[in-house]
C-alpha cells in the first residue's frame, strides 16, 4: 500500500448536509472551530507517498471479559508521526501497548487480529518479545529513568542487546543523547544520578534510552502529560526531529499537540477506531460527527 489511509472506518459515517441531533446549548452557541486548529502547521503531512510500517487489521483486544478494542483497521506510515487521540478509556493506550507486547505483562489481557510489522505478525507466538521491544521502543507517560547515572540509563539497553567495546558504547551514548537534544545539558555530568534531572530532561533521557538500542518504531504514551508547557514544547520539537529517522506513534490527550506534531491522526472512541487520516484533514474537515465534536472540544 502506498497511500495514507484517508477514509474513515466503516463506523458511523454521517452525512454532514443533514442537521445533526444537537443539544440546546449547542444550538444557542453554534460551534466555533478553535483558532489553534487553523494555526496548526500540518503542511508536512501532505505527502501521500509514505510506505506502511505497521498494518493493523481486524484487531480486537480484551481485558478479561471486557472488550477494549473492536476490529481496528489502521495503517501506520513509515517515518511519520501518527497520533492516537480520543477520550480516556477509548483503547488508544491499549492498542499502543500491544504493538510492543507490553500487554503481555497484564495477565488478563488478550488480543486477536493482525499487527503486521513488515510481514511479521507481532501477535504470533514465535515473536521474540525481547527483540521486538528492541525494534519497537517505548516512552511512557511519566518519566521513568532508572535510579542510576545518566550514562548508565542510556547504556542500559545497549548493554542488554549488544556486546560493545567501551569506546563504542561511549559514542553510542553521546549520539543517543544528542539525538534526544539532551547532550549539551548533561555532557559534563554523565556520571550523576538521572533522578537529579528536571522532569522534561528526564523524559528526554528516556527518549535517548529508547533510541540507543536502534529501534525502528517509537511508541509514546502521553509523553508530555506530566510536563510543564516549556518542557512539552521541547519534546514536541524533538519529535519533529526524530520523525526523520523513526516511525512514531504518539498517544495524546492534548489535541493541540496532536495537531502540532502528527502527520496522521486516528480518533478512537469506546474501543473503536472512528476516523483516521491526514492530521490536516481530520482537524479541518473531519468526516465523522463524533470526531468533529471531539476535536472541537464538545466532549471527551
Amino acid at each position, binding site marked *: 500500500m502506498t497511500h495514507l489511509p484517508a477514509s474513515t472506518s466503516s463506523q458511523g459515517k454521517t452525512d454532514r448536509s443533514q442537521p445533526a441531533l444537537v443539544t440546546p446549548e449547542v444550538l444557542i452557541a453554534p460551534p466555533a472551530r478553535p483558532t489553534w486548529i487553523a494555526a496548526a502547521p500540518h503542511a508536512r503531512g501532505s505527502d501521500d507517498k509514505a510506505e506502511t510500517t505497521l498494518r493493523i487489521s481486524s484487531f480486537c483486544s480484551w481485558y478479561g471479559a471486557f472488550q477494549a478494542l473492536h476490529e481496528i483497521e489502521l495503517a501506520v506510515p513509515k517515518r511519520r508521526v501518527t497520533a492516537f487521540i480520543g477520550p480516556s478509556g477509548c483503547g488508544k493506550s491499549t492498542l499502543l501497548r500491544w504493538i*510492543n507486547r*507490553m500487554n503481555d*505483562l497484564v495477565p488478563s489481557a488478550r488480543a486477536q487480529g493482525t499487527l503486521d510489522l513488515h510481514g511479521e505478525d507481532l501477535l504470533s507466538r514465535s515473536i521474540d*518479545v*525481547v*527483540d*521486538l*521491544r*528492541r525494534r519497537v*521502543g*517505548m516512552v*511512557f507517560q*511519566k518519566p*521513568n*529513568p*532508572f*535510579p*542510576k547515572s545518566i550514562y548508565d540509563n542510556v547504556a*542500559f*539497553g545497549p548493554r*542488554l*542487546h549488544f556486546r560493545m567495546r567501551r569506546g563504542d558504547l561511549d559514542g553510542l551514548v553521546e549520539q543517543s543523547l544528542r539525538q534526544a537534544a539532551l547532550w549539551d545539558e548533561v555532557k559534563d555530568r554523565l556520571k550523576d544520578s538521572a*533522578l537529579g534531572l528536571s522532569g522534561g530532561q528526564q523524559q528526554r533521557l*528516556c527518549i535517548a*534510552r*529508547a533510541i540507543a*538500542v536502534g529501534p525502528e518504531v517509537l511508541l509514546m504514551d502521553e509523553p508530555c502529560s506530566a510536563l510543564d508547557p516549556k518542557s512539552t514544547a521541547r519534546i514536541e520539537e524533538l519529535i519533529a526531529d526524530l520523525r526523520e529517522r523513526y516511525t512514531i506513534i504518539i498517544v495524546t490527550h492534548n489535541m493541540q499537540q496532536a495537531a502540532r506534531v502528527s502527520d496522521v491522526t486516528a480518533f478512537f472512541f469506546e474501543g473503536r477506531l472512528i476516523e483516521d487520516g491526514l492530521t490536516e484533514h481530520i482537524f479541518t474537515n473531519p468526516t465523522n460527527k463524533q470526531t468533529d465534536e471531539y476535536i472541537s472540544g464538545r466532549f471527551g
Partner: protein
Amino acid sequence: MRSKLARRAVEGVVRAILVGASGFSILTTTAIIVVLTLETTRFFRSDGVSFTAFITGFEWNPLLGAEKHFGIWPLICGTLIVTIIAMLVAIPLGLFTAIYLSEYAPRRVRAVLKPVLEVLAGVPTVVYGFFALTVITPLLRGIYAGFEIYNVFSAGLAVGIMCLPIVCSISEDALRAVPTSLREGAYGLGATKFDVSVSVVTPAALSGIIAASLLAVARAVGETMIVALAAGNLARMIWNPTEQAQTMTAYMVQIFLGDASNFGVEYYSAYAVAATLFVMTFLLTLLGHRIRIKFREEYE
C-alpha cells in the same frame, strides 16, 4: 450530647494513657542503660581490671581464680564467626526468596510461601537451639567427623535460618516498593525478567536490602539461646568453625545462670560484655535506620 467538660475529661484521660504507654518504653530503655552503665563502671573499678586490657585483650578466663584475664576479643570472635556464618545463610537465601516472591512468584505460590516464612519467624529460638544441637550437628558430623559436639558452624546455620525471614520480608517490601514504571521502562527496552530483577529492581531497592541485612546482623549478634545451646562454652580465639567457642551472649547466660559467685568481678564482667554488645547492636540499628530513611526519600 456529652457536655464540653466531659469531652475534655475524656480527651485528657486518653492523652494520659497514650503518653504513659509510650513513656513506659522510654523509661525501660533508660533504666537498662543506667543499670548497664553503673554495673559496667563498677566492673572497671575492680582490682586487676583495666579498660585498656578489656578492650585489647585476647584472653578471657574470668573463672580461673588468681589468673583472671578480661580481654573481650575471644567473645567478640565467637560472636563474629557465628554472625558471619549466619549472614552467609540468611542474606543470599533471604534475598533470593524475596526476589522470587516479589518478581516471579504466581499469586498462589506467594499465598503459601509468605505464611510459611511468618511461621519460621515465630519459632522460639530455643527450638532453633535444640534443632541445631540434635539435627544440624549430627548431620554435620555425619558429613565430616571433625566437627565437635558443640561447634560454631552448627549454631551459625541455625541463627541464619532464624534470621532468614527478617531479611526476606524487609527486602521483599523494599523490592515491591520499586515503582512499576521502572519495571515497565526496562521491559520496554527488551529486558528479560531476570534483567529487570537483577539490573533494575534490586539496585533500586538496595538501601532497603542493606537495611534488612543490618537488622539481621543486629539480631544475629544478639542471639542468645541458639548459641548457648549449640556453640559451646569455651572463650577462645578460633578460626575453625568446626570447633566450639563462646559468644558474648553465651557468656552472659553462663554468668547469670549461676556459674559465677554473685557480685564478684566475674559477675560484673557480664555487664561490661553486655554494654559492649549493646553499643554494637545500637550502632547497627542506627545505621540501618539511617539507610532506611535515605531509601524512603529516593522515591518521593
